[in-house]
Structures are given as C-alpha cells and as structure tokens.
C-alpha cells in the first residue's frame, strides 16, 4: 500500500504519504507501549527463532527412533529426561526432555513442533482471511439477496460450537493435518467475512470511492486500494487472535486423533498419544503442553495489545 502505486494511478487518496507513514509509526509506538503486547511479541519472537533454527537446536531427528543408534539399555520408550548439567551420568546420551513412546527424542519433537504449529496457524488463518475477504466483498458489493444469503450462511456457521463443527467436517474429509486445517479454517471464515463486508458498506457511498469510480477504477482496483485499507486494522487484530485459536483447535483435533498423524511432530497429537501414560511419563505431557500454552498466550497477548493500540477510544 505504498504511495508510489497510488501516484501511478493518479487518483487522490483520503490519507496520503508522510501523514500515513507518521500515523503508522505512532501506532507502532502505541503497540510497544503496551506491556502485554511486548510480552506477547517477545514470546512469539522466541518461538519464531526456535522454529527457524530447529535443525540447529535439536541434536536428534524428530521423526526417527534412537533404537539402533544408542545403547539398548538407554534407548527405552518413555525414558525420563537426561540432562548432564543436572547430574545425569555422562555416559548416558543426553535427552533434554526424555524419549517418547516411539523412542524418539522428545526435545527434537517439541522444537520442530514450533515450526509445525506456526505454519498451521499462519496457513489456516491466511486461508480463512482470503476466503472471508472474497465472501465479505461480494456480499458488501452485491447487496440484496446475495448479501442476505451469504451472511445467513455465515450466521449458521457461527451457530455451531467451533470445535464441534470442525470435528464433523473432519469426519467427512477424513483424519489428517491438512483436513483438520481446512476444517478449522472453514469455521473461522465468518469472522473475516463480516469484517470485510462492514468495511465495504462503510466506504461504498463515500465521495472518494465515487470519485475513483468516476475516474474509471475497476471494482477490483477500488477494492484493493480504497476498501482494503479500511479493513486492515480489524483484520490484523482478528487475525492475530485467530492464529492462537487456530493453533489451539488444530491441536485439539490432533489430540483427538483427527489432525496431525504420527510421525509429524505436532504438540496436540503428541499429548493425545501419551496422556494415558501420565502416571509414569508426565514429561511427555508437560513439555508439549507448555509449548502449546506459551504459543497461544503469545498470540493472545499480542492480539489484545494490538486491539487496545488501534482502538481510538482508548487513547492515553
């Protein structure tokens, strides 16, 4: 959304150039003034780093058992964590979070899980936003019965408890990570469609949109350059909160055996496979559980912070 593009089309903008840049910079400052947002950003920054450097951090393959590569007396299913710095004998191979039920290094799985979960969150919400944008734009532009039909459909989707509708959709599509993501995305579409439709309706009759239309801008051009900037703020806030929810729901589906399948290192699936062994292998619940909670907490804190920063009523 740079000014160069708009200069090229030669149409006037409601808010242009330096002023726009200045507000966005002060917005950024307002976000950073919120303690929760900063904590959220730090958590997410840490997770992104873990996801990027997963190969460096993990000494073991997250999908291969250590049987055969390690002495048989150590390579046992659900072995407790062995940390040399905390007094684990040096002749034992080090496994920071122990071994899981398939004798795979749990630390490697938790670390690679960050990559899987962040990917799940961004792809799921990205897909939902994309479809939501299209539906909301069509509904807002077309009006009449098209608008009515689409928005009633969105209302019906919202009438189901989210996890339950995704469960039903996955039973139809078949268990699997991609299908779980599709199911969670479908359930999330209405939120973004509503935001987009509201933005379209709020600017449709504005003078600058009429002006752009008079100057021969295509409907798509108007949508991208005049309507979308208005929808951007609520989209960012909803999207940030939505990523946390999406990760949570895919994890819940995986926990139930409907999402990610073995050997994909996905936290919900890891917990789901081992929770019956909580008596003797609590570490297999604890570490992925903490990772999952931390990720969702990060997105929630950042989303709340963004919402407060963008809310004009909360100027301090």
């Amino acid at each position, binding site marked *: 959304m740079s000014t160069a593009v708009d200069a090229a089309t030669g149409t006037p903008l409601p808010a242009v150039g330096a002023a726009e840049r200045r507000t966005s910079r002060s917005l950024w400052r307002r976000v950073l003034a919120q303690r*929760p947002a900063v904590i959220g950003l730090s958590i997410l920054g840490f997770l992104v780093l873990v996801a990027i450097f997963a190969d460096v951090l993990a000494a073991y393959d997250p999908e291969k058992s250590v049987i055969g590569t390690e002495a048989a007396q150590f390579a046992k299913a659900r072995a407790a964590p062995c940390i040399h710095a905390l007094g684990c004998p040096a002749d034992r191979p080090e496994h920071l979070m122990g071994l899981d039920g398939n004798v795979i290094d749990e630390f490697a799985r938790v670390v690679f899980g960050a990559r899987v979960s962040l990917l799940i969150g961004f792809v799921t919400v990205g897909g939902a936003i994309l479809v939501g944008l299209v539906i909301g734009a069509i509904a807002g532009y077309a009006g009449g019965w098209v608008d009515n039909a689409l928005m*009633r*459909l969105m*209302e*019906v*989707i919202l*009438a*189901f*408890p*989210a*996890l*339950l*509708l995704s*469960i*039903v*959709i996955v*039973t*139809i599509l*078949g268990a699997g990570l991609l299908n779980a993501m599709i199911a969670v995305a479908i359930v999330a579409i209405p939120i973004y469609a509503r935001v987009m439709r509201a933005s379209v309706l709020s600017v449709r009759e504005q003078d600058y949109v009429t002006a752009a239309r008079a100057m021969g801008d295509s409907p798509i051009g108007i949508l991208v350059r005049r309507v979308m900037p208005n929808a951007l703020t609520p989209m960012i806030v909803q999207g940030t909160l939505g990523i*946390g929810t999406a990760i*949570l729901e895919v*994890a*819940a589906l995986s*926990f*139930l*055996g*409907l999402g990610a399948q073995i050997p994909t290192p996905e936290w*919900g699936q890891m*917990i*789901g496979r081992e*929770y*019956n062994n*909580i*008596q003797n292998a*609590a570490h297999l*619940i*604890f570490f992925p*559980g903490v990772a*999952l*909670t931390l990720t*969702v*907490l990060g997105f*929630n*804190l950042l989303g709340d912070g963004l919402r407060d920063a963008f809310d004009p009523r909360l100027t301090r």
Partner: protein
Amino acid sequence: MIQFIVRRLIASIPVLLGVVIIVFILVRVIPGDPCTAMLGEKANAERCAEFNARIGLSQPIPVQLGIYLKQVFTLDLGTSTMFGRPVTDLLAQRLPTTIELTFYALLFAIVVGMSLGILSASRRNSAVDVGSMMVANLGVSIPVFVLGLVLAYLFAVVLKGTPIALPGVAAGRLSPGFRFESIAVAWGMKDLAGPPRAVLDFISNMYTINGLVTLQFGLLFDALRHMILPAVALGTIPMAIIARMTRSSLLEVMGLDYVRTARAKGLRGRVVLFRHGLRNAMLPVVTVIGLSIGGLLSGAVLTETIFGLSGVGLTITQAITSRDYAVVQGFALFVALVYVVVNLLTDISYGYLDPRVRPS
C-alpha cells in the same frame, strides 16, 4: 418486551433451519456409500436396499431434505452402529453427565471469575490486580486438555495417598464399589413407567442430584469428587473471560457521574461498589456468561475424553473412532441446536436487563 422476545424468536428460526440443513448436507457428502457408512459391517445388498428405501436415498435431493427435516422434528436421528440403538435413546442416556459437568464448570467460572474481577477492579494496579489478570491471561490461553492433564497429574499422581487427592485420568464418574440406581427405585416407586419414569431416570443419571434427593451422601460426595477436576479444567477459560469482563466493566462504571454522586452522598465504599457499581456492570458479564456456554460444549468433548466421563462429548469421540456417523451427526446437531437456543436466551435476557437494547 413480549414483542421483542417474539421478534427474536422469529429471527432465530432461519438459523435453526440453517443448522439442520448444514448437518443434512454434511451427512450427504460423506464419501462412499451412505448405507455402508450408516450400517457399518451389517451392510449387505438386501439390507442396503431396505435402508435406502427407508431413508429415501433414491428420491430427489429436495424430497430427501423434506424427509430429513421430518425425521429431525419427530426426534428420529437414526441408529447407532456402535451401540445398536436409536441415537435419541443414547443422547437421553449420555446428556445428564454433560449437563452436570457444564453446570459445575459454569458455577466455578462465575463464582471465581466474578470474585477475581471485583477484587481486581476494587484494587486497581495492586499486586492482587496484576496477579488476577495474569491468571486470567494464562487461563484463556491454556488448552482445556493440557489444563485437565496438569490438574490430573497434580491431584491424582503427585498427591496420591493424601486426603486432598482426587480421581484423575479416565477415572469415570464414580469410584469402584459405588452403585447408582434410579431415583424411582430409591423412592419405592419400582413400578413407575412411561414418561414420568423416563424423566426420573434422566435425572437419576445426574449422580450428584441423585445422591442429594435420595439422601445417599456417600454417593453425592464421591460423584462430586469425580466432578471437581473436570469442572475446573472446563471452567477455567470462561472463568478467565468473566474475570476480565467483570474488571473492565466495573472500572468503566465506577468512573461514571452517578457513582461519584453516590460517593459524595457519603455512602460507604462497599455499598457504592456493590449497589451502584456491580449492578450496572453486570450487563456485559451476563452476555459473556451466555456466550461462553458454546465454548463449554466444545470443551466438554475434550474434558470428558480425558476424565472418562460418559457424556455427550466422550460419546462423540468414541463414535468418531468407530466411524459411527449417525451418532456424530445426531449429537452435533443436538449440541448446535442447544447452542442456538442458549444464545437466544442470552439475547433476550440482555434485552430484559437493558431496555436500550429493545427496539421500540
């Protein structure tokens, strides 16, 4: 007011119909032959022909929809392949557990959530406030199944053998040795039959109520002990949301002119807080409580699975693993309908509490 209620009722009819139609579409798009999907291993050519004729699969789609709507309205949700009995029967048997669980979860959420919120708001920016809001932030972020397992580990594994140990993972609803019988039997009405008996049996399945009304306090306490961890795990997310909403709403109200007037009159702080503040701060809290019931229904699937409570949620997960589609869809439809009705009631109560919401 009545006009408002009627208008809201009418407005929710399309949504209810939409829910039924969506489930109908979902049932039809199951890959493979619906006959084998519904009948499972019992499917053969003869049975399939009979099955297809019965549910009208040879008819055009609109006719099929009509048949399906009729089935739903006559409470015929098909037959469970897993249990070999009507889905509605199964629902009636499993529902009491879920009602009990969500009731205690909601009770926990409201009592603890509102207390935390009031405490935070009345001591803004104190250590209590910061601590409560940290709990609330963590509470909305921790997945139900992670919290449930952490609680189970703490109270059933770590504290095992101590008096405060509680039943943990897959513990079910009662300890071994405890039996439950219908309230009708306990009240000496063994021969009762028909709808009254069915209603009594339904209520009997809520063990804490059963224990209470039949004066079997051992049963009551054992059932309660089994309910504590699941209820806390399930109720934590709404608890956190209620706490945050109570705090922000109360802070907003306490800054209004009439609260200042009340203070200026010389009323004590507590009177101002509860009489003038809390009363008016309750509106958004009521909405949040109503809206969180949908989350409770979703969370019940996970909570019941972990703790082995044989309610609606556990039945759904069992049905998924044994590909019992009739149960999955029938139960999903039921829960969605409950959800719509609860939202409707929330809306109406909001209109009742705040006249401004009512359209004149």
